[in-house]
C-alpha cells in the first residue's frame, strides 16, 4: 500500500506524518531531500568530512527514533538541524575534554589579540562575487576556535537568540555575548587581511 505512494511529490508534513506511522519509504524521501543541508551544518561546525558524514547519519537515525516526539512546531528541516547541532556540540565538547587546551584557545576565550585589534574600516567584500565571498567567509570560519565558530553559526546562520545559544552551548548568556563579540571581531580582521593580500 505504502509503496504505491508518490513520495517525491509529497510535502514534508505528509512525509513525516507517514514516517511517524512507520513508513520507512517516507522517511527515506525526507533523508534524500534534506541530507545535504544536515551534512552542511555538521561540516560547518566540525570541519571534517568523515566526522560530518558520520554525525549527519547519526542525526537521521536519532530522528527516526524520536519522530513520534516531533509535533511540527517548527519545520522538519529546522528540527533535524537542531538534532545535528546537538550531536556536533557533544562531539566538540568531547574533543575539547580529550585534548589539552591550547594557549591560543585560552587567549581567544578572554579576548586575546582581538582586544587590541583596530576597527576594520575598509570593505573587504567590495567587488567580490558572491561565491568568492562565501569562500572567504568559510575560510575565515575555519580559522576560528570551535567556540567562536559555533556561536557565529548558531547566531548568524541559525538565527538563535543569546538565551537559546547559551542553553545549547551549556554556558552563561554573558559568555555567549563575549564569545560572539570576539568571534565577530576576529572574522572582520580575517576578512580584511584577505583583502589586503589581494591588494598586494
Amino acid at each position: 500500500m505504502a509503496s504505491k505512494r508518490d513520495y517525491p511529490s509529497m510535502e514534508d508534513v505528509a512525509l513525516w506524518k507517514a514516517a511517524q506511522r512507520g513508513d520507512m519509504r517516507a522517511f527515506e524521501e525526507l533523508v534524500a531531500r534534506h541530507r545535504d543541508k544536515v551534512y552542511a551544518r555538521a561540516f560547518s561546525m566540525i570541519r571534517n568530512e568523515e566526522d560530518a558524514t558520520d554525525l549527519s547519519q547519526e542525526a537521521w537515525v536519532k530522528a527516526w527514533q524520536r519522530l513520534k516526539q516531533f509535533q511540527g512546531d517548527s519545520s522538519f528541516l529546522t528540527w533535524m538541524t537542531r538534532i545535528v547541532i546537538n550531536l556536533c556540540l557533544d562531539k566538540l565538547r568531547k574533543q575539547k575534554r580529550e585534548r589539552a587546551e591550547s594557549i591560543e584557545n585560552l587567549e581567544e576565550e578572554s579576548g586575546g589579540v582581538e582586544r587590541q585589534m583596530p576597527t576594520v574600516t575598509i570593505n573587504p567584500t567590495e567587488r567580490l562575487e558572491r561565491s568568492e565571498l562565501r569562500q572567504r567567509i568559510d575560510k575565515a570560519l575555519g580559522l576560528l576556535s570551535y567556540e567562536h565558530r559555533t556561536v557565529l553559526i548558531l547566531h548568524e546562520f541559525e538565527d538563535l537568540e543569546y538565551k537559546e545559544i547559551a542553553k545549547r552551548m551549556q554556558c552563561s548568556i554573558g559568555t555567549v555575548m563575549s564569545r560572539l563579540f570576539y568571534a565577530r571581531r576576529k572574522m572582520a580582521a580575517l576578512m580584511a587581511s584577505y583583502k589586503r593580500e589581494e591588494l598586494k
Partner: protein
Amino acid sequence: MNVDVGIKLQAYLDGELTGREAQQVAALIKNDAEARALFGELQQTSTWLKGNELEFRLPESREFFWGKIEREIERLETARVHSATPAWMLFIRRHIAALGGVTVAAALVVFAAVQMNVISPAGLLEEIDNPLEDVGTFSFRSESQNMTLVWISNPFVDAEESSDATPMPEEIQ
C-alpha cells in the same frame, strides 16, 4: 574601547536591548566616533555572514547513505526488542532451532528404524543378556511372548565345526 561597551553595542545590534538601555547605546553610536566605527564593523560582519554560508554536499550517494541509515535503524530496533525480552525467553529463542532440528532428526531415525523392522515396538521390550562372553552364554527374554531362552555354546567347538568360519583371534596371531 572598553570591551563591555563593545558587547553592549553588539547587544543593541542583535536586538537584545530594550527601553532605556537601547536609547543610551543609540545615543552613544550617534555621538562617539569610535563607538560608531566599532558598531559599523560588527554590523558589517553580521551582514556578510547572513545568507552567505557556503553550501556543502554530502560526499555519498543517496542509496549508499540511506543504506547505512536503514541498517543502523534495523540494528538498533533489534537490540531494543532483545533488551525488552526476558533472558530465559532469549535462551529458548536462541536454541529453539537447534532443539527442533535434533528432535526432528531423532524422530526420523526412529521412524526409519521401525519401517525397516530394525526395531519393532514389541521388540523394544525384549532384551539380550550375555554376561560371560568366553563361555558363550546368551539369555533371551521376550515379555511379549512371555518366554525366557538360555543358549549355551562352546565357541571353540563352533569354530571347528564351521570350516568356512572366520578364524579365531588366536589363529590370527
